C-alpha cells in the first residue's frame, strides 16, 4: 500500500527540501520529522515514499530511521509519553516515574525493553518510552507528552498530567 500523504503535508515537505539546494539527500532528517509528526511513526511505506521524494534508495532512508532512537517504526498511543532516563533525571527518580506512569496509563512496563523501547496501552490511548536526554537536566525528572514538556514531575503529579492530556 502506498502512503497517502495529504496535500498540505507534501507542500510543507517540498518547501523543506528547497532549504537544501545542494543535495536532496540532506533533507532526509527534516522530512522524516515531518512525516513522523503527522503519522506518529515512520512506516515502511513512509520510508519508501520519502526515498522516492528524495531520489534515494529506500534502504538509505531506513538506515537513518534506525540510527536515531527519536524516529519510531511503529505506531504510538494517542498520547505518547517520553520519560527522560539520562543521568540527572535518573538520579532525580525517573525510574519510579516510569513505573508510575505505566501503572496509571495501564501500560505493561515489562514491554519497554532496550530493543523495543516503546509500549502502548491496550486501549491505544497512551504509549511510553524511556528516552535519551530531553534537555531539562536542572529540573529533573522531566518528561514530554506529545509536544508538551513537563518538569520536576513527581509521581504525585501524574494523575493531573494525564487528565490534562485529554
Amino acid at each position, binding site marked *: 500500500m502506498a502512503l497517502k500523504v495529504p496535500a498540505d503535508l507534501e507542500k510543507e515537505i517540498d518547501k523543506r527540501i528547497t532549504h537544501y539546494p545542494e543535495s536532496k539527500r540532506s533533507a532526509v532528517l527534516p522530512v522524516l520529522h515531518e512525516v513522523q509528526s503527522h503519522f506518529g511513526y515512520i512506516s515502511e511505506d513512509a520510508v519508501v515514499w520519502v526515498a522516492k521524494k528524495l531520489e534515494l534508495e529506500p*534502504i538509505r532512508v531506513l538506515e537513518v530511521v*534506525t*540510527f536515531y532512537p527519536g524516529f519510531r517504526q511503529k505506531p504510538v498511543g494517542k498520547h505518547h509519553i517520553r520519560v527522560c532516563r539520562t543521568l540527572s533525571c535518573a538520579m532525580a527518580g525517573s525510574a519510579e516515574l516510569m513505573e508510575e506512569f505505566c501503572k496509571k496509563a495501564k501500560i505493561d512496563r515489562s514491554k519497554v525493553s532496550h530493543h523495543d523501547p516503546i509500549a502502548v496501552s491496550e486501549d491505544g490511548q497512551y504509549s511510553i518510552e524511556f528516552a535519551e536526554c530531553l534537555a531539562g537536566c536542572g529540573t529533573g525528572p522531566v518528561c514530554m507528552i506529545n509536544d508538551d514538556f513537563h518538569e520536576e514531575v513527581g509521581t504525585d503529579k501524574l494523575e493531573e498530567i494525564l487528565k490534562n492530556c485529554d
Partner: protein
Amino acid sequence: MIQIAKDKTAYIDGTPHLIGEGESLLNFIDRHKGRGHVPTLCDAPQLEPYGACRVCSVEVALEVDGPRRTVASCHTPLTPGLHIFTESEKVNDLRRNIVELVLTDHPLDCLTCEVNGNCELQSVAAKVGIREVRYPQGRNHLDRKKDLSHPYMTSDLSKCINCSRCVRACDEIQGQFVLSMHGRGFDSRIIKGFDTSFEDSDCVSCGACSQACPTSAISDIFQSKSIEATNHTRTVCTYCGVGCNLEVATKGNEVLSIQAPPNAETNGAHTCLKGRYAFRFYNHPDRLRSPLIRREGKLVEATWEEAYDHIAENLNRILKDSGPDAIAGISSARCTNEENYLMQKFIRAVIGTNNIDCCARVCHSPTAEGMQRSFGTGAATNSIDDINETECMLVVGANPTQGHPVTGARIKQRAMKGIPLIIIDPREIEITPYAKHHLQLRPGTNVALLNMFSYYILEAGLVDQDFVERRCENWEELEAGLKSLDLDEIEKLTGVDRQEVKAAAIEYASAKGAMSFHGLGVTEHSQGAKTVMLIANLAMMTGNIGRRGVGVNPLRGQNNVQGAADMGAQPHQGAGYLDVTDPKIQAHYEEYYGAKVSGEIGYKIPEMFEAARNGDLKSLWLMGEDVVQTDPNSEAVRAAMANLDFLVVQEIFMTETAQYANVILPASSFLEKSGTFTNGERRIQRVNAAVEPLEGTKPDGQIMVEIMNRMGYEQSACTPEGTLAEVAGIVPFFAGATWEGLGDNGKQWPIQEGCESTTILHTESFKRGLGKFHFIEFKESSEIEDNREQFPFILTTGRLLEHYNCGTMTRRTRNSEIVSKDVLTINPVDAEVKKICSGDHLRIFSARGEVTLEAEVSEEVKPGILFTTFHFPEHMVNNITSDVHDGDTMCPEYKVTSVDVEKV
C-alpha cells in the same frame, strides 16, 4: 643510488619511495611493501576506502623525528615528504587492541568454521599477534540466527564484524542497495531490505557481498571461501558476452564453487549469479553421456565409433546423391573459437559448401552488417572499461542489468555518479530510474525515433563538422534526408514527445564523450541492420569515435558470439570475415585448408529451414543449438526438422530439437574444455578446463576433428595452442595471437605486435577508409501492417537475469527456484479493459498460434504493449512470434509480434 626528487617521494619506515598520483597511504604502502604489510579489516581492493575499523592505522610525521600522529592509512591521502611508520610499538598496540575487542564479540569456533584458513579476521589476528583475549565474555551477538532462506546466499551474522564491506559491495559494485547497517553502536547489525531474509529481499544473488565479506558472516551454499578445494582454475564464463573471468575451485573431478578473480580486467572481482552460482548443470543427471543413434524410430545408445560410421555413411550418401549444398551446419556461439573454426572448416573444406551459420543470425547479425557498412568492421569500437571515462551513455534496445549484468552494473554505477544516461526502450527497465532521459517508444519504431534524434542534433548545430569532413562520406545524403523528415508523423508513430527527443539528442551531442550501447532491441527488427547504421551515424556526426569513452558498443549476447562470426560461422564470409565469393580469397582458403571450397554464398539459418521444408536441404548438423525452442515460429521450424533426411545434434542435454535427431553426440560443457572465447569487446580470453570431460562425453572440438578425420580429411587434434595457431594463420586480426601471449586477461583484437591488445578501433581512420553515413527511411514492419486490425496488441520479448535463453542450463540449477516461469506484463489500463488481474492465466494469440501465460499487471509497459520472456519451454513463446526478418540479414523480428490477449 638514483637521486629521487623530494616532492615525489615519501618514506615508509625510513626508506624513500616514489609516490603515485592520487594514492592513499595504504595504496602507497601496499604498492611498495606488498598487500598485507599493513593489516586491514574493513578495506577491500574492489571497494572505496571506508575507514571504519582503524586496523590499518599508521603513525605519520612531517619530519623524521617530528611529532607523530596516528591515522587510518586507507583513507588518508599521501603527501610528499611524509614519514610513515607502519610497525611502531604504538600502532602495533593499537591494532592488537582493536582486533582483541572485535574478538570479544566473535565466536571462536574457527576449527568448524567454513572459512577456516581463509578468514581475514583470523589472519589479521595472527598478524597482530593476539594470543589471548583479556576481556571476560560480556554481552555479545553470538546467538544470532543463520539465514538459510535463499537458494544461494547465506548469512550467519554471529560472525559479523560490522566492517560494512558487504553493504559497500552491494552499493558500489552491484548497485542493488539490499544490505544496510541497522541501528547504531552495540546494536548495529547488517540487514537485508526492510530487515527481512535474503529470500524476501531484492537480492540479485550476484555474490559480491559474499566475496567481499572477510569472515563467513555472508557466504553462499557452495561455501566459496572455504579452502577445501585442491585446485583453482581460471577460465571464462559460458553465459553472456561480457566474458567474466572466473576462478573455479575443484576437488578431484568435482567443481566446488566459483569466484571472480580480483585482477580480472573484464569483471574485476565481480560477476553475476549465472557466472558464480549457476554451474551445477555441468554434472546434472540429465547430461547426455552416450552417443545415440535413431534405429527404427527410437534413439538408442551407441559407441562413438558406431556413431561416426553412421554419420560418415549417411553424409557420404547425401553428398553423392544430392551434392554438398544439400548439407548445412549451425555452429555455436557457446563453443570456443577453435571449435567454431573447426566446425566451419568441416562444412567448408570437408563437405564443400558455405552452408554454415550460427546463432548470431538470430541476435547480432544486423550489428555486424550495419557496422561493417558504416565503419568497415562489425565489432564493438571500444572497451567496456571506457564506461569509467565516458561523459554520456546512450542505451538503445538493451536491458543490461538483466542481459549483461556486470556491464549493466557498471553503467548503473556510472549513472549514479551523475553521468547522464539516455535510454531508448519500449519498457521501463531496471536502470530507468537512474536515467536522465527515457524515450519510451512503441516497439518497431527505432528507425523513426533515431531519425528524429539525429534531426535535432543537426538542428541544434551540434554536428562535429571537422570529424564529418575529415573522416566520413555521404553526409549530404543524410543531411538532406533529415531535413525532409515529417516530425509530426514520427511523433505519432513512436509515441514519444518531440521535446523529450530533442533534449536527449542535445545531451548526447553536447557531451565531451558519449558511448552508445545497443542490444537485441535494436537488431531483432525488420529494420535491424538499418537501425545499427543510424546508431553509427550518431557516433560519426558527433565525432564520438576513435578515443576513450565513446563509440558504438553492441552488447553481444552469447559468451562467444563475437568469436563464432570471427571464425567464419556465417555463409557469406569465411574465417576472418573474408568474402567467400571473391576468387582470390577462395584460392587463399583452398591453399590453407588443402581442399576445395565453394565460391557460392550459403544458406542463412532461416533459409536452411526453408530449404529443409522444400526438400533441398537433406542434412543439418547442429552444434549446441536448440532451434525448435529458440527460433521464431516454432511450428515452421519443427516442420523443417521433421523433413530432414539426416539430422546430427551435438549437445550437452536432450533438447526439443534433439528429439528430431538421427544421431546425438554428447558434448562437454565449458568447464570440461580448453580454448578461447572472444567477448563483446573483442577480447580473446583463455578458457581452461577445470575438470575432465564427463564420462561418455567429448569436447565439441574433438568431435569435429574426429569426424573430419573419419570423412577422410586430415585434421590435427584440437589443442588450445595448436588450433589457435591454425586460426591465427588465417584470421588476419588474430595474427600474432598465441596461447601464452594471451595471458590471464586475454587480448583485444586486432592483435598488435608482441600479442598486444587494440582497445579502441578506428582511431585514425575507419576500417573501410571513410565512415559512411546512411539515411534510412522508416518502414513499418509487415507484421504490424498485416495484422494490426485483428491483433491490436504488440508483444515484445526480452530476458531475465536469472535465466539464459531457453534455460537448458540455468533451469537445471537453483536459479529455477528464484524464477520458475515466464509471465506476461500488461499495462493496468489494458488490464482493466480486459478485466485482467496479476496471476490470471491469459491466452495470447497471433496469426501463427497461441500460448498461455500468467499475467503481471505493471506500468513497465505502455498501454497497447505486452512483454514476456522466453526461458521456459513449457510456454513455447516462439509459437506465436513471426518469421518476419531483418531485410538485410534475415535476423528474426522477435521484438514485434501483433497479438491479442484474453483471460482464459
